[in-house]
């Protein structure tokens, strides 16, 4: 079947089998390998992308199901050489070691920050709940939580 997907604001077309999973379409067709392909069972969260602004595990969604929706991957965060506050937060707070979970963590927490924009500050519990579907085997999560808090604080200053 012919698929025409909107990935990071660009239309990407290719004929695929209906069984193609979204994570593979994203990695193979436009070659956006920032989205990681991890456990394949919707447990690890490395493949999280945003569909219409909401985080979704792209290993458990058919590419065909994403047609007509806006897909955002980790590559969309940096703009004109400037890191997104969430990326800067991960850098400042040393929130990654091996980096495998990072793209999924960034997209999951980007969505959390967007959802909370203008609202009360996020508690550590809320941050931990939001990333409870994402597994990191290096950091013990402490620095990831600190990075999200950093991003939330620095984002508010910008507004």
């Amino acid at each position: 079947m012919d698929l025409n997907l909107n990935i990071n604001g660009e239309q990407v077309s290719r004929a695929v089998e209906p069984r193609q999973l979204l994570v593979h379409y994203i990695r193979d067709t436009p070659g956006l390998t920032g989205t990681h392909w991890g456990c394949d069972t919707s447990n690890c969260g490395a493949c999280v992308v945003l569909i219409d602004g909401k985080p979704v595990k792209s290993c458990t969604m058919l590419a065909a199901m994403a047609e007509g929706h806006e897909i955002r991957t980790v590559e969309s965060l940096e703009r004109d050489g400037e890191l997104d506050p969430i990326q800067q937060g991960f850098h400042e707070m040393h929130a990654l070691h091996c980096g495998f979970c990072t793209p999924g963590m960034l997209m999951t927490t980007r969505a959390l920050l967007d959802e909370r924009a203008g609202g009360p500050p996020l508690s550590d519990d809320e941050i931990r709940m939001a990333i409870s579907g994402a597994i990191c085997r290096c950091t013990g999560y402490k620095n990831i939580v600190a990075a999200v808090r950093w991003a939330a604080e620095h984002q508010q200053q910008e507004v």
Partner: protein
Amino acid sequence: MQTPAPFEYERATSVQGAIASLSRLGPEARVIAGGYSLLPMMKLRLANPQHLIDINDLDELAYIREETDRVSIGALTRHVELLESDLLGLHFPVFRDAELVIADPVVRNRGTIGGSLCQGDAAEDLSAVCLALHGEAVLRGPERERIVRLDEFHIGPYMTAVKDGELLTEIRLPLKHGGGSAHEKVERRAGDFAIAAASAAVWVDGGKIVDAGVALSAVGPTTVHVTRAEEHLRGASPSEELFEQAGAIAAEDCSPIPDGRGPVDYKRHLAGVLTKRALKRASARALKQEA
């Protein structure tokens, strides 16, 4: 790499169209909504449908609304919407209890109540929730619509009363005076399926339990409806001893199997304790005494 076997994909644009496709394609067709249950089964080749009908565009199936004597939930309503619904929070707080421990927030953005029920996995939570609330499922076929009580909906492991050519469109939960409900679950880690879980509902009038619902997840071949505990509760006054007795019945009447999540005696123990706790909390909510 896990990839499903080949299939034909079709995106439904109307409920009628989805039902027409389902009845034309027969047993080889499956409906896909969130996909978080079906796609993993297809990757493992435990499910091999030849045709998938994607119903994600059918917004008319996504709603939670109060009607005269019931709350109706559209089959495409997603976990996150069930979790955040004030209407359900008011009438059936059991949903919020359960939704906080179903998978994780990212999965909850996609997974639907209809998919949860139709998957027919005994370890899934919402089937127990809807069963404890004495709900009904609306199944629409090409010619007519029929209503199936939740206690007749799950007919075996991964098997439901939904026939070829039928689509689950709505879940109906009766609204009765003096109700309270709660869900209790023990899992190995965040987002996992239950080792055991219990859903309970009570309806209290004049200090007596006039009706009760008790259902268990993960401790039988399908969702367990503990009718003997319900009978024991009806007509009695809420008390610690009563709930203890109902828990003991639940532990007796379930049929868990030993697996990586635990041995049989542990699961029975959990079924009893969780039933008691769920009843206690449901009753406190019914009596507006929740701490």
